[in-house]
């Protein structure tokens, strides 16, 4: 597994303590998992995703990542409606291992944009990873 210094943690993203990343653009938000999360999971074999149109409150489970012998739940960092899911992951779950940032999982339209401000900056996330 990667050391903290080996992890790729882009500066321009916001993070959660469940090891997800978000990027906001034009009123929508893409959500994925961090390099740390994919590294911990190992080979990802399946991504369970919600359906477009599903609505979630902040903190709701919206999907799961599966490796051969583990399941990791995904929690929505900001409440909202799912406007797109990354269909490439259905047949290519390993894309998340290859590049966790290019391969977002869902795109949502946040219902309360002020929740975005509560997300972690890269520095704050790095602190959490330090333990």
């Amino acid at each position, binding site marked *: 597994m990667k050391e903290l210094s080996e992890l790729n943690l882009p500066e321009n993203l916001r993070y959660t303590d469940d090891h997800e990343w978000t990027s906001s653009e034009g009123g929508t938000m893409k959500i994925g998992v961090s390099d740390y999360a994919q590294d911990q999971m190992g*080979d990802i*074999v*399946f991504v369970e995703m919600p359906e477009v149109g599903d609505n979630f409150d902040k903190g709701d489970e919206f999907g799961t990542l*599966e*490796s*051969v012998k583990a399941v990791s739940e995904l929690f929505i960092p900001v409440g909202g409606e799912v406007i797109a899911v990354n269909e490439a992951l259905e047949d290519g*779950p*390993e894309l998340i291992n290859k590049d966790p940032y290019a391969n977002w999982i869902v795109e949502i339209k946040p219902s309360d944009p002020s929740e975005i401000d509560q997300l972690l900056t890269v520095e704050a996330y790095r602190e959490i990873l330090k333990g």
Partner: protein
Amino acid sequence: MTKIKTPGISGLILDEPLLWEKGKKGRRGMSIPVNDVPEAVLEETLQGQGPDFPDLSEVDVVRHYTRLSQWNFGVDTGMYPLGSCTMKYNPKINETMAATPEITSAHPMLDDEYSQGTLKIMYDLQHYLAAITGLPGVSLQPAAGAHGELTGMLIFAAYHKSHGSKRTKILIPDTAHGTNPASAALCGYKPVPVKSDSNGILNIQTVAELMDEECAGIMITNPNTLGLFETNIRKIADIVHSKGGLVYGDGANMNAVMGIIDAEKCGVDVMHLNLHKTFSTPHGGGGPGAGPVCVTEELTKFLPTPLAVKDGSSYRLKYDYPDSIGRVHGFHGNFGVLVRAYSYILSMGADNLKKVSQLAVLSAAYIKEQLKGTLPLAFNRPCMHECVFSDKLLHDDGVSTLDLAKRLIDNGYHPPTIYFPLVVPGAIMIEPTETECKEDIDQFIGVIKKIVQEAKENPELLHQAPTIAKVRRLDETKAARNPCLRG
């Protein structure tokens, strides 16, 4: 280093294709009686094509399965120290008894008067299991350990319902069996994990803090999955009872304590037994097993029906239990498995069953003592029928528990249970059982020491293992990413 002799040497392995990769249309592997009645025609809208099976000859089928069998490792092949699974020897006479023609041809739907022999087996076995556990009510229906757990949880739910309450949670220690949370969840109970203490057992105070009147009770595996006896069980049971809860005893590890503990005195209300572990019935590569449930007098009325009872000199099935949770199996459980356990208990008697537990514990304690300088013990406390090591030292050599396990295969052993229990990182859980003799145990200990030495000197041997089995390490990621579940 002295040369350690190991049973594992390479032999001739014959390849064998999948069934549908062989055969020729028109072959037949089984005789079919001639038609001695007029041909009838089913209406066409209901008729199908019939399944796409290859046609094989009898020799095709016999050779196929004989070759497949040679790719397997069983208890009859060699030592199978798989912790938590009690891979003891499966006596052959039990198979003969279960194959008694009067038993194999018995139909489960006939009136009791036609089935006195099979009903007597049920009645006696219910009593024997009650005597062994100390819990007087017994249902033989559950088909496996997890099925017994489910039955137990259904009894919990029925009990609370009869007291006018519906509880929502259940306490499950971190050293319990993996099936426990899923069994409880089926009955609507949310599992509340209970951490074991630094000695690897349950702490009275911890349970007292978590137990409340929303909790249906606790599920305790005793001895627990670390192979340790839960010494506080009686006091923990008192706490649970004082809050109106019940105590479930997962009896999967009963092989350690027959004739040693009395489940009722421990405060256990419901307990399942795994006949395929403690009572020597074969595991069959995954089943069928049997998981009878034993309960206190008070809970007997909730057991699945029917139960076998005796009126004077005859036996019958009694259905009249209005509080029963109902059936959990289509008929009487895995009856053929029950017959094997019945034969085992009759062959052993009380003294030998107690001796089984004593020798199972002695063998595990002996391995623990002989290996504790080679592998780090998870807990250095008196162990029961199994002992748990961690892979802490192996890590320094860049090898894992998995590598050690695979190297054992090349040496002719089935690996122990690995990565369980979850509370021990890289766990290696060894359960020798009472049926392994001392020379074989000594040889196994020698092989483990040899492998740990190899890990230091030539870790590649471990990373590459196994090399002489039918296949080498398999790509599980590929299997899960692109599932191919049929041909």
